[in-house]
């Protein structure tokens, strides 16, 4: 009788072990995708989208061609979320720095800096190709 009972307990224990392993497999298969930290991982995407929006109507190249640093700074300040610091440098197609000074909104003390490279073309009859380096960081 006692041996018969212990056999039953063994079977229950084996079932319990199988259940534990299967539940681990089932839970891990249905793991939700972990949300990214928008402040860091999406910073490059946000910067790229801001430049794309400015470039879609040709205003990005117009700011550069006119040397309008304050206009470009204001436009980026409007398009980028609050608390994002930026530093923008413009090069020509041969990667020579354009005389226009770096456009920045000042506070750039963060250690985690994201770089966005963007090629901008002008719409004016006199064609120009610019390479833009936009450094972004979450202001602390």
């Amino acid at each position, binding site marked *: 009788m006692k041996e018969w009972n212990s056999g039953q*307990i*063994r079977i229950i*224990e*084996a079932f*319990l*072990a*199988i259940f*534990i*392993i299967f*539940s*681990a*497999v089932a*839970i*891990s*298969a249905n*793991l939700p*995708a*972990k949300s*990214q930290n928008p402040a860091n*991982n*999406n910073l*490059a*995407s946000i910067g*790229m*989208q801001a*430049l*794309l929006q400015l*470039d*879609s109507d*040709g205003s990005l*190249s117009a700011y550069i061609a006119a040397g309008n640093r304050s206009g470009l700074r204001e436009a980026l300040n409007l398009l980028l979320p609050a608390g994002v610091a930026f530093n923008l440098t413009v090069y020509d*197609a041969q*990667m020579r720095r354009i005389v226009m000074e770096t456009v920045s909104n000042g506070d750039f003390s963060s250690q985690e800096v994201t770089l966005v*490279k*963007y*090629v*901008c*073309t*002008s*719409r*004016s*009859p*006199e*064609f120009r*190709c610019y*390479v833009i380096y936009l450094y972004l960081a979450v202001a602390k």
Partner: protein
Amino acid sequence: MKTAKKFCAARSGQLLIVAAFAIAVLIASTSIYVCELITQRQNVEDGFSVELVLAVKTGLRNAAVSALANIAHGGQKTVLTENLDALADTYMRLYPQQICQIRYTLLNDDGYEDGIKLSWNDYGGLGVSSTYIPYILKVLAPTFNLTVNDAINITTTLKVHGFYTIGENETLRTVNLTCTVFNEKKPAQAKYIAIHYEDDSGVWIPVNNPSITDWGNGTYSLRFTVAVASDFVHVSVHVIDARNIFVAANVTCSQAG
């Protein structure tokens, strides 16, 4: 030895459960790690590729607008290939590992010559300045390749129609024109409008100070007075749109019935 055997025999069920727990933890942690790695990598690569495609498309579009504006103002047709090649070269220089490849063809069909169509001489009141460039864009990422087959269509169209009326002085004719400007079939604004008419000797004379009414939807009403004796007034309207693209349309106006 006997005691250990006895212990193992008595506790084998519990040991089985502990082993199952260990295996479960291993499975779960491995799955979490792999899942996280795949998600991060795909998000970064997908996002980068999509935005790179959008950036290249915007660049190609701007380069085509610039070329059409240049050519419509009298520039060489080679400007189009020069602009597109300059953009492709800049991307090659920026990504030397050939992550982004642009291949385009210039249309030589349906009124296009080397990708450009300038149709200004028709007297039916229609003028077209257009460029159409089919292209293939390849983005080569470490884990996947993305190929985009698309075309750039930059078209400025001007439609003009009108009539003239005769006042008390029979040599003076008041011409009324309606012009509509389109960018890719959507109403667009004109930056500059000039009107010329053909006098009795066949010389084109610019109209000074015409009355222009902007209806705000790409439609303009033009009114001016000319001194011609013929039954028809030949008019040429020249427009530069907001993208600096020049287009002209000619129309023959007859007396209003």
